[in-house]
């Protein structure tokens, strides 16, 4: 019965401190489960938000950076007017390209309304010009005013009335996705906190025994925190994996739909589903630590 004081190797100690929490206890298990289920949903919400963002970007980039100028048919020499316009545009900073539309393109534009068999050449139609500009440096309003002053027959149009609603719709979808994501992540955090709390309550006997054999608060909390953070991490990994697989093998309900076909992650976006488990584990870590110390205070 003599005093023992040899310290065991650190590794052995660590293993022991981990095993003190029931490896398959109710609470640990539920934490993992919650993490998995909520991660699964979160990945879908992420996909929704990111895809909506992508689609919004596509939709807008199709129109972004392009404007149309039309020169109304008038008494003046139209070729001369066109030259003058091109000159003005050449002086305008930010304009990348300005190209008169040929009749084929014009026909295509009007076809939906007038049919494609109109003798365009015979019609006194306006001359259309397709202008490409570089986002920032281009001053739409300045150009409009200059044209009004110098070349009143040329009217510029940046398609805002068409682009606006489409962009708004895509933005709304994106907001909705982020909203759902925020909602799901909050619910995840809340449920992990509560599961950890509940689990600590369920492990009352373990904590009591540990306290009575002289374990410090730090020792007890560390054991729980590790187990829970690990379980939450593994659960979240599993949930994310399932979600990613589900996304991949999802029945493409509308094959002809660009939106659903794009639904998922592209390249750099993969960081999000990969980061999620770490986020959830972090929440579990903080939640368990907090709940653990609180619970211990409660038990004296």
């Amino acid at each position, binding site marked *: 019965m003599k005093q023992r004081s*040899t*310290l065991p190797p650190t590794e052995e100690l660590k293993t022991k401190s981990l095993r003190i929490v029931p490896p398959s206890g109710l609470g640990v298990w539920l934490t993992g489960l919650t993490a998995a289920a909520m991660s699964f949903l979160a990945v879908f919400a992420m996909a929704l938000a990111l895809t909506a963002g992508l689609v919004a970007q596509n939709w807008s980039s199709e129109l972004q950076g392009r404007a149309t100028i039309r020169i109304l048919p008038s008494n003046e020499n139209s070729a001369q007017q066109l030259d003058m316009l091109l000159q003005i545009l050449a002086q305008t900073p930010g304009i990348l390209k300005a190209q008169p539309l040929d009749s084929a393109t014009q026909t295509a534009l009007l076809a939906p309304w007038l049919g494609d068999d109109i003798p365009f050449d015979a019609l006194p139609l306006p001359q259309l010009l397709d202008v490409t500009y570089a986002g920032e440096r281009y001053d739409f309003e300045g150009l409009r005013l200059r044209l009004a002053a110098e070349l009143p027959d040329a009217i510029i149009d940046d398609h805002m009335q068409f682009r606006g609603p489409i962009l708004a719709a895509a933005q709304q979808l994106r907001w909705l996705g982020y909203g759902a994501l925020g909602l799901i992540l909050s619910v995840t955090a809340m449920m992990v906190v509560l599961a950890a709390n509940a689990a600590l309550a369920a492990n009352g006997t373990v904590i009591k025994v540990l306290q*009575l054999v002289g374990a410090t608060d730090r020792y007890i909390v560390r054991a729980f925190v590790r187990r829970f953070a690990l379980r939450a991490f593994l659960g979240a990994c599993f949930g994310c994996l399932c979600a990613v697989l589900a996304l991949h093998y999802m029945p493409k309900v509308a094959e002809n739909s660009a939106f659903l076909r794009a639904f998922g992650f592209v390249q750099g976006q993969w960081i999000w589903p990969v980061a999620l488990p770490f986020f959830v584990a972090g929440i579990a870590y903080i939640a368990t630590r907090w709940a653990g110390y609180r619970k211990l205070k409660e038990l004296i």
Partner: protein
Amino acid sequence: MIAFEQVAYSYGGTATLSDVTVQIASGSFHFLTGPSGSGKSTFLKLCYADLVPSLGRVSVFDQDTHALIRDDLPQMRRRIGVVHQECQFIEHLSVIDNVILPLTVAGRAALPKDVTDLLNWVGLSSVVGMTPAALSGGERQRVALARAVITSPEIILADEPTGNVDWEMSLRLLTLLVELNKMGKTIVVATHDLNLIRTVKAQVAARVLRIKDGRVLLAGADL
């Protein structure tokens, strides 16, 4: 080593213990007896600061348990071995891991030979690999005793350590405590078994505390 000064304790209603003034000297051997529900377990809980007195003061290792701050408790508990009446274990750990738990949490290693000797003495060598749930009532009590003495603590408090074991085993367990007492440990054993007290008193200079109506009295030679 343990001093009660005009201690009273009540769980809410009438006082379970009142006006208790007792000194338990270092190296002494005390029995604690009294009818069921008289407050034996309560007395022991006051000794290891699981409860703090409603009135008066209890000092252990010359420290008032009222004044103990949170971080001091584990240090104090490591110097006291306790056998609880309702033997609680960590049910998913094996018997051997439960026995060496006080060493594990203190970050100390167990010497295999000492552990084996101890388990042999309390007759548990054949069940070390089982989980506590598979033990018989008496085996649980013996595991609890082994856990209490494994660190060789300065004070050992045992609450009915022989309630579920036969007479021969009771004597064996008490002999272990007597040996520890001879090594200088302070021992307090709560028991209702007067025969056991009589038998052990022949071996060691034990004093008997009797709890009656909330008072703790020193019993005479008549028991």
